[in-house]
């Protein structure tokens, strides 16, 4: 029973490491590989920090376990080791972590600047849509096909909701706004997040590596429907993207006479892409 507690305090870190180790296989992990180049860099940074943190976690817990076990051995001693510390050790364990932290700081500066500093945005990136968050949905405004997105609404702009189509393989930029309270544009699979601040327009750029349907959720408490703001970013080929915009334009100009397609079918056509039973 003497060794029970040291064992206990060694046991739980082992469990923690095992759980962490099996998490990717159990799908308790990132929702897939990062589907954007900056996202990949974020993942690389994550794993680099994981390595450092893992070593420190294991190291400190081995040390803790060791001193606890030895503490049991010393239990019958009359006195403990009378030490007030060690100057050498203090220097060592101040400088070494400082170095590691400095390294991590410098390593990630560039990624941060690429994300957020306008002068570091890709040269060719153009705004393709304005995304306005409101309680509790994402309202999207595209320019008419072939036209640039203007800061103010134009008569021929196209509108949709919760469904952002982007061409993949090139950087795109959206203008993020809010109609009421704070929201946050979060696309986990692309590793993109930016708060939508009322009263401001914030440019958010990203590039999708491959076609796909990426979940869009809100990441800033905006009221009771915060969880309901389910949207998607659909990355598709340039041609399909242009076709989508044309379909949207036709739909938006529908005067009831041209074709008598049921509205349900029309919406189905442009909201779901091809056949789709899960909405995904």
């Amino acid at each position, binding site marked *: 029973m003497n060794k029970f507690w040291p064992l206990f305090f060694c046991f739980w870190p082992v469990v923690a490491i095992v759980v962490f180790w099996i998490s990717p296989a159990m799908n308790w992990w990132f929702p897939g590989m990062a589907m954007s180049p900056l996202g990949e860099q974020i993942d690389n940074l994550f794993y680099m920090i994981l390595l450092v943190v893992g070593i420190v976690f294991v190291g400190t817990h081995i040390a803790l376990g060791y001193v606890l076990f030895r503490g049991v051995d010393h239990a019958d001693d009359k006195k403990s080791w009378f030490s007030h510390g060690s100057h050498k050790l203090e220097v060592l364990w101040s400088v070494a972590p400082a170095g590691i932290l400095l390294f991590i700081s410098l390593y990630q500066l560039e990624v941060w600047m690429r994300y957020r500093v306008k002068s570091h945005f890709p040269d060719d990136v153009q705004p393709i849509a304005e995304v306005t968050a409101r309680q509790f*949905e994402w309202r999207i405004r595209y320019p008419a096909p072939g036209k640039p997105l203007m800061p103010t609404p134009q008569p021929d702009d196209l509108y949709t909701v919760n469904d952002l189509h982007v061409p993949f393989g090139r950087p795109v930029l959206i203008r993020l706004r809010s109609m009421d309270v704070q929201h946050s544009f979060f696309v986990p699979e692309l590793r993109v997040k930016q708060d939508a601040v009322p009263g401001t327009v914030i440019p958010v750029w990203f590039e999708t590596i491959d076609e796909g349907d990426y979940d869009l959720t809100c990441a800033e408490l905006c009221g009771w429907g915060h969880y309901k*703001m*389910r*949207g998607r970013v659909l990355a598709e080929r340039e041609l399909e993207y242009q076709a989508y915009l044309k379909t949207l334009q036709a739909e938006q100009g529908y*005067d*009831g006479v041209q074709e008598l397609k049921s*509205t*349900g079918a029309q919406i189905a056509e442009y909201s779901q892409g091809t056949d789709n039973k899960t909405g995904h």
Partner: protein
Amino acid sequence: MKFSDTIVCAVALLSIAGCSSNSVPQFETSQDTEKLFQPARDAVESELHAAFGTPDQLVVWPELPVDFGNFGGSIEKVTTQGTVVVPLSGQSPLATADRLPELSGAAVLVAPSGGDETAEDGQAPAEKAVAVYRVAHYEPESKSLHVVGDDGQPTQISATEGDGIQIIGDGLQKGRNLYLRHCVHCHGVSGDGDGPTAPYLKPRPRDYRKGLFKFTSTKPGIRASRDDLFRIVKLGVPGTYMPSFMLLPDDEVSAIVEYVRWLSMRGELESKLVVQLSLDFSSTRLEDESFADVSAEFDEFRGSDLPDIVSSAGEELSVDWSAPEDPENVVTPKEERVASSEESIARGRKLFLSEKTKCYSCHGETGAGNGTATETINDLPGQPGVKAEEPGLFDSWGQIIKPRNLQRGLFRGGRRPVDIYRRIHSGIKGTPMQAFGNNLSDQDIWDLVNFVLNVPFEKKTQASH
């Protein structure tokens, strides 16, 4: 006092406290029903229960034009073991193939062939003798269907080749589950627009029980169509707290739409019954007469007249809710839209400000929604001559309503030209926005549409925001 004892006591107390029975949502009766004399109230509740059930025990009333997600087919072969071979196919978007294995216990209707139509919208054929069984088991590969009797006992199915089979699906249950997850906290269990969140929302969530929906494509006096409701759920209502459920799969949205229609029919049945019963059996009668007398009269009424009232109400519902699906009842412009030119917009503005339409009296001269009607006492919608108690405009649900501020460019019923056309042509049901279709030609309406769509882009002469 030992600690082990303390711990045991504590855990016991907590487990008792923590266990409460799982309760289920309940339909509520409307305020008008509450005003009836008690036995009449009970009768209304029991009729509703018989026709619609409770949220966790739904009753399928086949007469209603609701898509229950039925499957149907024609018997190919009757085997000697008492099963039939019948290729079943879904008869609506709700009857998807993956639901076939889950149908055990579902009702099976066998309609003898020869002259009848197995209706394709889920309605059981009404006229011929229909035998009712329950599904025991269906094998999709061999297409063989085993049944038991309606009472659950084993039985031989009596049918011949060519007879029609209807299996009542569980589409309504699916709709109910989705509704309880996504809709109930605003729209309420009974669809009365009074869920826990409702008091904090402007405008309030729709109360389905009148069978009225604002943004429809159907003619005045016709109910909303499935397409209309599908559109609202998919696209939301911009400018309100009705969000867009764009990413729900189509079959789920259809299921929700069916359930909403079903709730609406339930609400309508309740109000039809209440209207009839409150003629003679409201609780104010007890002020003059004794309970026993009224009771006796009611018992007789209940036996002789009430069933007829219920069945004719059912027929009305059936007609009312099938009508919107008829393309004849959808408002379709006869002429294509006039191009949005400056001349068209100018004509539209002239119409907007004219005495013929008086749009400006509600929407204001600049379209800001601040017309004079917002400050005067007006008639209640649908009740000409009956004045409201306070100034302003009211909708049929008793809520104050603001005319649309056209400068915002946010159109609740949709921003397509045809949507705006329909608002002008047929009005907005349940609101003071009237139908102008009889007074204006298509050309006029298109001019107005062009004007309305252009209002947000006019140069602002007055400070609006």
